[in-house]
């Protein structure tokens, strides 16, 4: 059984909690980035929580997921530890990638997370390959790739879906149509009305679902999973959603206005799911507040942990370059920085 399934009351509450956890994680990550605490770039998932949570709720823990550059929500949905994720964002040695990958590269073999990905469109081929392994080893699992609306224009996404379709692999492709690839609206990037129409080119089922509705996403992915397990091949699911924040933190967003953002906020996935649970008598306002407080504490702890954790040592740059250490490379690592370095790098 999945960690949470939307079929049970407890599962639905867990789904709500995970959506809150994602929002709190990313709200905080955005703040800490803007403070200058977190280096590099962060792409936030705020607004899109129902897609990740609805999708992973329909998966089993042993299923594989390939993520994107906007991956924090996928990771939390798949059950990764927010502390180790935050440590990775902070570039710390305890993070999921020992502080070498950062926000865009979080991966965890045990959790079946094949990795966030700095390269748009690189996830689907990984999922196709993982699905082939599953098929070859005759296991009851599926492999799923997330991708953005923009990614659908990438050649390798086409190649991956075509391979999976041609070979009837147990793969699922979830396209998160958040209406923009960076600044470019989806209509300027694609000729089809719905991105799910592209499924026709591979003769696989393609569906468009309301990505602001966690249940709708859950149902579509559940069906796709059943189909994949039955040996009937992949499904392409387009989830219509929206990111509330800019493409990355710091985006000045000339391509849209407040009114548009407000329109989507009115359909907020967390708010509407919460209302639904309250209506069904599965949640009270007080319980919700308690849940929110817990989530805030979890993320505050994650930040405290991440801040406190150690930075990687220079020598660690060479760890895991190859399965076996290469002596020459290690020699190279031992050359000290001339001025002694700024204690692991000073993020100024």
């Amino acid at each position, binding site marked *: 059984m999945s960690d949470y399934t939307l079929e049970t009351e407890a599962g639905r509450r867990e789904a709500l909690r995970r959506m809150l956890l994602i929002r709190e994680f990313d709200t905080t990550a955005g703040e800490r980035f803007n403070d200058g605490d977190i280096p590099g770039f962060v792409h936030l998932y705020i607004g899109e929580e129902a897609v990740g949570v609805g999708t992973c709720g329909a998966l089993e823990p042993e299923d594989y997921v390939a993520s994107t550059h906007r991956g924090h929500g996928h990771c939390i949905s798949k059950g990764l530890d927010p502390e180790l994720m935050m440590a990775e964002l902070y570039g710390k040695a305890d993070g999921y990638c020992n502080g070498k990958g950062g926000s865009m590269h979080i991966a965890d073999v045990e959790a079946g997370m094949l990795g966030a990905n700095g390269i748009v*469109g690189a996830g689907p081929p990984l999922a196709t390959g993982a699905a082939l392994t599953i098929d070859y080893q005759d296991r009851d699992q599926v492999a799923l790739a997330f991708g953005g609306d923009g990614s659908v224009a990438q050649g390798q996404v086409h190649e991956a879906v075509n391979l999976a379709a041609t070979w009837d692999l147990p793969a699922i492709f979830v396209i998160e149509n958040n209406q923009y690839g960076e600044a*470019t609206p989806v209509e300027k990037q694609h000729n089809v009305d719905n991105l799910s129409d592209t499924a026709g080119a591979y003769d696989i089922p393609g569906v468009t679902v309301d990505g602001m509705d966690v249940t709708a996403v859950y149902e579509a992915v559940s069906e796709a999973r059943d189909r994949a397990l039955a040996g009937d091949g992949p499904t392409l699911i387009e989830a219509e959603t929206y990111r509330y924040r800019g493409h990355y933190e710091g985006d000045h967003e000339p391509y849209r206005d407040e009114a548009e953002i407000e329109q989507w906020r009115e359909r907020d996935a967390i708010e509407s799911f919460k209302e639904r649970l309250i209506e069904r008598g599965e949640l009270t306002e007080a319980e919700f507040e308690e849940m929110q407080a817990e989530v805030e504490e979890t993320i505050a702890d994650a930040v405290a942990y991440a801040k406190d954790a150690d930075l990687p040592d220079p020598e660690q740059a060479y760890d895991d370059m190859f399965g076996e250490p290469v002596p020459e490379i290690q020699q*190279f690592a031992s050359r000290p920085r001339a001025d002694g370095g700024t204690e692991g790098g000073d993020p100024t």
Partner: protein
Amino acid sequence: MSQQTAATQSLTLVQAVRDGLYCEMDRDDDVIVMGEDVGENGGVFRATQGLIDEFGDQRVIDTPLAEAGIVGTAIGMAAYGLRPVTEIQFMGFIYPAFDQIVSHAARLRTRSRGRFSCPLVVRAPYGGGIRAPEHHSESTEAFFVHQPGLKVAIPSTPHDTKGLLAAAIRDPDPVVFLEPKLIYRAFREDVPEDEYTVPLGEAAIRREGSDVSVFTWGAMTRPTLDAAENLAGDVDCEVVDLRTLSPLDEETIVESFEKTGRAVVVHEAPKTGGLAGEIIATIQEEVLLYQEAPVGRVTGFDVPFPLYALEDYYLPEAARIEDEIRETVEF
């Protein structure tokens, strides 16, 4: 062509890219800019800011997210008479287009026995120092230099940026134009308002000296000059900014080495297979008898570009360059 005037404007390097594009688009209707978010949004680094307002969306084309498609399409355009300038958002995103660049752009002329040419420019910001790992910081110019049929240019100043970019756009062959994003906004320089070119294939001597030649390019030029300055009085460094990596200005390299007999090469790309090796081989072949010390290399390490905690160790900085220069001079 516009009336030549002596007027200048004070520009950053990224503004010089924009100004270079503007001037070339203004003088030649066949010049077309295309890439992801280059239009309305003015490019991720604002290098194409406002060009769409000046020239319209037929000449400043927002493309879908498809590097192979962008460059492949541009090759077709170039083969049939246009002069496309494509923008790749970061050098690390160029690889989906690698096939198009190395298998097609670079070979079209020779493959068609000169009947086709490919006056294409592929622009991409490259290099580290911005606290992001891997694809957002890497410096893989050697991949492109290795490919016969491509020219590769990397400016280090606003003035050169505008002039080299103009030369790249007017060049009859494909040019990979790499922009040091670390110094996109680091300093300003007076740049002529009118169009001009800085020829491809000519290095610039940034500092004359007689003890040791230090060869570098792009964002590493500044820490190299700092190192030379710090050593002044003690060691007299000549700093050569290569500006074009393919074709290499072998003449300037050789002349400088004949004078000094010692050299250090500085680049931020990983050491193995990096261009320092090529420069050293050139020295060996051409001026071996002048050589008084092994040629030193100050480079990135043989790992994917690391996240910020290790970035300062990875990137050559003045102190590391100084050390290597001393070692070479004291040999």
